[in-house]
């Protein structure tokens, strides 16, 4: 009883809190809550709109064989393209971060960093233009060579595409697009690696590479992994570049250089949506939901890895 009595006076002890304060704090809080609502809304609307597709008879759906056999190959294509991009972009991104942080002439380093960031500023549709008109035709002879000489590897079984609009080309375009993300995050963690460790390594007679291997890379490992996963998230959701570059025929294949390629979820939505109606739209939204769940999982994992490292960094200094 006494405790409940004492509560009101304590609340009244701050009369100086004016109306303006309450309004302002309230609206800031409301904006924060709105973000919660929007995200919940995204999830709720996607689920709600895709429910009809889950219940629909298989014959009405685009592939004609049920929802999962429609989305499955697309999800496979998304993951395949993103993984190719990751395999290409991660070593390059790390090397670029090392170059900007430790190899480039000091005076140029900042400017070169900006130049790499420019890659991130170019709209994805322009990458698509470049991929379909410039890169794909240029890669055709290379694919021919791959099919002739490395055809025994299932990835390069061929027959080589005559247009160059293959899974591998798509992967390369995506790699260029996620390169700035990976290199920016790697650069950040490399710059935070303890200066004293680096100098100590050099003082003990380490070469520059040994210094990097001993003092920088172990420290930056989780940053590299996190950056790569953020890049993976971006590559999974990339739409227009894939829609333009990839020549899609559906199906599941690991053959990277042939004419028949699996589609990706995002590209498929962009290509089909404008002409779709009714249950087809629901099926497309269902595939969007799958993409949302996949990228969500990848991104949360990436953030978790990056943040774990930042806790570690905080403890260190």
């Amino acid at each position: 009883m006494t405790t409940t009595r004492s509560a009101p006076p304590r609340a009244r002890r701050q009369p100086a809190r004016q109306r303006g304060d309450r309004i302002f704090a309230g609206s800031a809080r409301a904006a924060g809550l709105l973000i919660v609502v929007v995200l919940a809304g995204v999830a709720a609307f996607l689920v709600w709109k895709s429910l009809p597709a889950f219940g629909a008879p298989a014959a009405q759906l685009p592939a004609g064989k049920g929802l999962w056999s429609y989305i499955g190959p697309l999800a496979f294509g998304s993951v395949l393209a993103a993984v190719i991009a990751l395999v290409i972009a991660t070593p390059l991104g790390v090397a670029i971060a090392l170059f900007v942080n430790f190899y480039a002439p000091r005076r140029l380093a900042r400017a070169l960093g900006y130049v790499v960031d420019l890659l991130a500023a170019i709209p994805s549709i322009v990458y698509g233009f470049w991929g379909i008109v410039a890169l794909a035709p240029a890669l055709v002879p290379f694919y021919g060579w791959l099919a002739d000489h490395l055809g025994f590897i299932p990835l390069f079984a061929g027959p080589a595409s005559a247009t160059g609009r293959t899974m591998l080309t798509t992967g390369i375009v995506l790699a260029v697009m996620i390169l700035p993300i990976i290199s920016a995050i790697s650069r950040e963690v490399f710059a935070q690696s303890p200066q004293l460790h680096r100098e100590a390594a050099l003082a003990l007679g380490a070469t520059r590479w040994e210094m990097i291997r001993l003092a920088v890379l172990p420290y930056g490992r989780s940053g590299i992994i996190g950056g790569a996963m953020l890049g993976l998230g971006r590559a999974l959701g990339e739409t227009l570049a894939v829609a333009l570059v990839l020549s899609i025929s559906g199906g599941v294949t690991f053959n990277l250089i042939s004419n028949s390629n699996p589609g990706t979820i995002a590209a498929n939505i962009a290509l089909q949506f404008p002409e779709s109606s009714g249950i087809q739209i629901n099926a497309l939204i269902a595939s969007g939901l799958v993409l949302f769940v996949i990228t969500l999982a990848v991104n949360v994992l990436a953030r978790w890895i990056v943040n774990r490292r930042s806790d570690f960094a905080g403890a260190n200094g």
Partner: protein
Amino acid sequence: MSAAPTPTAPTPTVSAPPPASRQPAGTSPIGRARTLSRAAAIGTFAAGAAVGALLGWATRSGVVLAVTYGVVLGTVALYGVSRALEGRRRATDRLVTSLVYSAFALAMIPLVWLLEAVIRQGLARLDAQFFTESLFAVVNKGGGAYHAIMGTLIITGLTTLISVPIGLLTAIYLVEYGHGRLRQAINLLVDVMTGIPSIVAGLFAYALFEIFFGPGVRLGIAGAVALSVLMIPVVVRAAEEVLKLVPNELREASYALGVPKWRTILKVVVPTAVAGLGTGITLAIARVVGETAPLLVTVGITAVTNLNPFDGRMATLPVFAYYQLTRPGVPPQYATDRAWTAALLLIVLVMALNVVARLISRLFAPKTGR
């Protein structure tokens, strides 16, 4: 660093040979018995590269292969010479150095190539007509992207109007007011929101507006909502970073003078951070102005000028470029030219926004001197 025996050596790793040659390789206590000077290293690489390039030229394999041979042979030559003269550790260091340089050069190729392709093909239609006419009743030649340019400006403007207040207030909440579970939750959700694929944001906006306007809805405002989903988290993160930089002493001084918290934020914190906020918002606009996928599913495309975002389809620059390239009609040349010019305009727009962002941060930066 004091180990460098001669003052002429620019850095310790390239100390001049004379003092080193006094000691035979391998017996030196410091392990730098014999080192290549910088000029010698570059020369070795260049010699290898020249042989490689010559090989490429002799076998008539084209520029790309010749350059590839050159880089590979140059690296191998440098590694071999360094291995023989300097030992394994330094050779590895040299190898990694040339790999890192090559990686950077490799990453520059797409950038230069892409800019070259877009500028070369985009210049063909970069004329006054492109900025003043729409595609209304245009069959082959002529026509422009006036409707698409206006559409992009209107939709991006609306997006900014929606996103900036929400984003700024959320950042203020996170930095100034938030605590405990809710703050953590919002922090996490902003991260999650950053990762939403742009096409999914488009689907969300479509589903939302379908409730009110029925199936097949295409509205400019729906596109603005979709873009806002993408832009808000960017604004929040940028604003949060900047607000965190405002020194706490300023806030405390203001409180000590009896200023209420909300006025402190509006009159002290935000003005101090205004340069950073401007930069962050401009970069966020640059991030969404080239987005195509969400507009493709929410706004669609049209050939006529529609300046009302609450009424029907609108044209936007990225979607315009997409359809002009993929559905050029016959003959395709005219539409393809328009597509490239639109792509060029997009790049120019994004680059200009980036430059403006840097200018803002330079011009409006808080004066630090006394």
